[in-house]
């Protein structure tokens, strides 16, 4: 059963095409990764999903309802953490957590206490005095404290230190065990890789890839390190071998995933001593899609 169903979703900001026929669906009980560089359309999609923006065309279903018309009814069944967390400077973290939790229909006190301890948050401090990371924690706890069907996180770990990132992962894994659905928008690849069952990649308002990691990996290159009895020859002429470096009998390269079988047959004639095959990381996936453009963008701060 689909929790989120998006078909041909299109959104313009004036003349700027922000989303161009976006398609994807999120099934019940899965952790779905929504990835792409900044400005690709992740937040726009989420904001349409939450009824904050109007779509221009396409179909969008959320928990069986229409995100625009049934907004209030649907929002009781989900919890959302925005990418940029700004809280009321005069309220304490504890007050924000309680208020948002109660608005969503109440929560268990133990769950709140457990989360506060886990994220090491002082609930007595005013939000205006929290650091960015601590404000993020307040928003995360306010969402996690509620027992709802769907959790939507927009770049949730920006500003969190690595330790807290692990705590967040732990919490998401627990939600998964409870059978909850999670939509996680991110550009932190290791995070998505560690948590998500399926992902889709968005770029310039278009979905360019959609599927499980295993499916996606087939589309890219596998990194091979091989030691042989005699030096390998002829690899440099193969179009499906890339980044070749050779030091005598020690050879490193990457190979298009669908050519692994041919490669292994070819290698055996040189007497294979050891072979290490490393599947591509999401980083590799990303670079293969975005190329230099991505590596450049990665350096610039969020704005």
């Amino acid at each position, binding site marked *: 059963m689909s929790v989120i169903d998006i078909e041909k979703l299109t959104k313009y900001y004036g003349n700027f095409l922000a989303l161009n026929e976006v398609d994807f669906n999120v099934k019940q009980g899965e952790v779905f990764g929504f990835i792409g560089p900044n400005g690709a359309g992740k937040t726009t999609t989420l904001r349409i999903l939450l009824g904050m923006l109007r779509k221009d065309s396409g179909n969008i279903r959320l928990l069986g309802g229409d995100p625009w018309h049934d907004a209030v009814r649907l929002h009781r069944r989900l919890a959302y953490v925005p990418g940029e967390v700004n809280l009321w400077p005069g309220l304490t973290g504890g007050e924000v957590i309680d208020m948002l939790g109660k*608005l969503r229909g109440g929560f268990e006190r133990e769950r709140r206490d457990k989360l506060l301890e886990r994220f090491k948050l002082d*609930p007595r*401090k005013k939000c205006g005095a929290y650091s960015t990371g601590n404000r993020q924690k307040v928003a995360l706890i306010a969402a996690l404290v509620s027992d709802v069907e769907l959790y939507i996180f927009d770049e949730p770990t920006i500003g969190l230190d690595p330790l807290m990132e692990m705590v967040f992962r732990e919490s998401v894994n627990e939600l998964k065990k409870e059978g909850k659905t999670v939509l996680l928008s991110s550009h932190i690849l290791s995070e998505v890789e560690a948590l998500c069952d399926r992902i889709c990649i968005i770029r310039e308002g278009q979905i360019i890839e959609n599927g499980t990691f295993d499916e996606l990996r087939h589309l890219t290159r596998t990194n091979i390190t091989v030691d042989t009895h005699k030096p390998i020859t002829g690899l440099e002429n193969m179009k499906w071998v890339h980044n070749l470096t050779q030091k005598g009998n020690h050879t490193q390269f990457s190979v298009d995933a669908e050519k692994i079988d041919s490669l292994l047959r070819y290698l055996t004639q040189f007497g294979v001593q050891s072979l290490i095959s490393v599947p591509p990381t999401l980083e590799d996936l990303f670079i293969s899609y975005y190329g230099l453009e991505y590596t450049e963008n990665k350096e610039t701060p969020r704005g």
Partner: protein
Amino acid sequence: MHIKKADYSGTMSLIRLILRRDRIILPVLILFLVLVFISIAAIFVYTYSDAVLREGLVLQISSNPASVAFLGSILDSSVGGLVAWRSAVIGPILVALMSIFLMIRHTRSEERKGRLELLNSAAVGRQALLTSALITTCGANILLGTIIVISFIGLGLSWEGSVATGLAMALFGCLLAAITGVAVQLTESSSDARYITITVLIAFFLIRMVGWDDGQTVWLSWFSPIGWVHHISAFAGEEWWIFGLFTIFILGLLFLAYYLSSQRDVGAGILPQREGPARASSTLTNSLGLAWRLQRGMLFFWIIIFTLMGVLLGYNAQTVTNLFTDNPQFMNILTQLGGAADPLDSYITMMLLLLGQVFAIYGILAALKLRSEEVKKHSEFLITNSVSRTRWVLSNLFFALVGPVLVLIAFSLSYSLTYGIISGVEQDIIRFVSAALVYTPAIWVVVGIAVALFGLVPRLTSLTWLVMGLFLIINLLADFLDVNQWVLDISPFTHVPNMLLGDTVGWSLVLVVLVAVFLISIGIVGYGRRDIT
């Protein structure tokens, strides 16, 4: 405090950034203020060129303690003297608001948005932000002062008086810029800084009002820079040494601001942040509870200030009545105007007309919370939760609509009670309170304008101030010019009956209510249908 050059590096590029960011709003602000001054000057130059006419006006104003309290006494019956008198209160207040707005916009708001940390890391010295904000704000004031001088001389006023007026406005603006410069060092949030400076400004006004020139407490007005502007006596034998007083205070405050700025951490205030409750109270469980939490500070602030003002006016009312009745000239005018109205009632009616518009400012402030909550992305947490858009708007609007009513009641109640106690005459409290409450519909129209803009063209929500300024000017002009009735009718305040002078509640007031309801409704519908940005 020692001065390091590195602390100021990047000031020029910050100034360029400010000028680029404000390339529209800054000229508009200055132009608006220039127009206010020129229109005041033009009124007197063109319609009061006749000395006999002026003498009549002077007599009329001087015998009305309410006018003297608000605007100060007229020091000279020349055209220039009248211009200086009329701009001596409204001028400093408007100039001050511009300075406060610009300073907070370019120091504290900047810092809170985290941009400062970014800027600081990019080789911008720690004093550069304060310096750039001060230079642009004071620059704007000096530019405004210069234009005032040129246009006053151009209108044929004496150059000494013109220079004194322009310089007074420029220096008053710079003084408020320096005060704001100190306030932004003290607090962590830009709204706290705004509270501090606005409170200071209101205090300046109230002190000058208590120390009005015909009273025995004239020495008090020396404690208020608005009083100084008056004492400069532009067009009436200028007291140039008072500019030295301004300069000394400006320099002292600047020194304090830089000292505090060098002492604190980026993003932190000098006044410590208090800890709060770890759990939400039972009122903080819905959007109305939250709105109460966010708006109550401002509500209490206004209620307290205007309760005090009611007490003050009630306390003075007896003296005022005596001044009235002792002045046959003024009694004559009154009889011509409103028949056999009680002089005290006329006095309070004038006060209410002014205060009704002041309370509308509170309505605007409360209504604009809608936009600021949206821009700060606070509202997202509610409307992606179980709160509907309409409910969220109504929760905040409740305070914009009910708040001014409470302030009206607090003021009229404290006034009539105090006056009753002082004079020993039994007061018809209901009569005073209802005379105040008939201002409610007009205030709601102003709130409605804010809501309609918020719902339909959110980026232009702050245009509400411009509309309110227009209403104020219409009222200002109406005192002196034969303005067409339809121009007067634009302002909802024209339609408020003067109940103390015998007016009754009529259809036009009902119409004003309907306009308010209409504006609020289209605002809510518009907000329900638009994108949240």
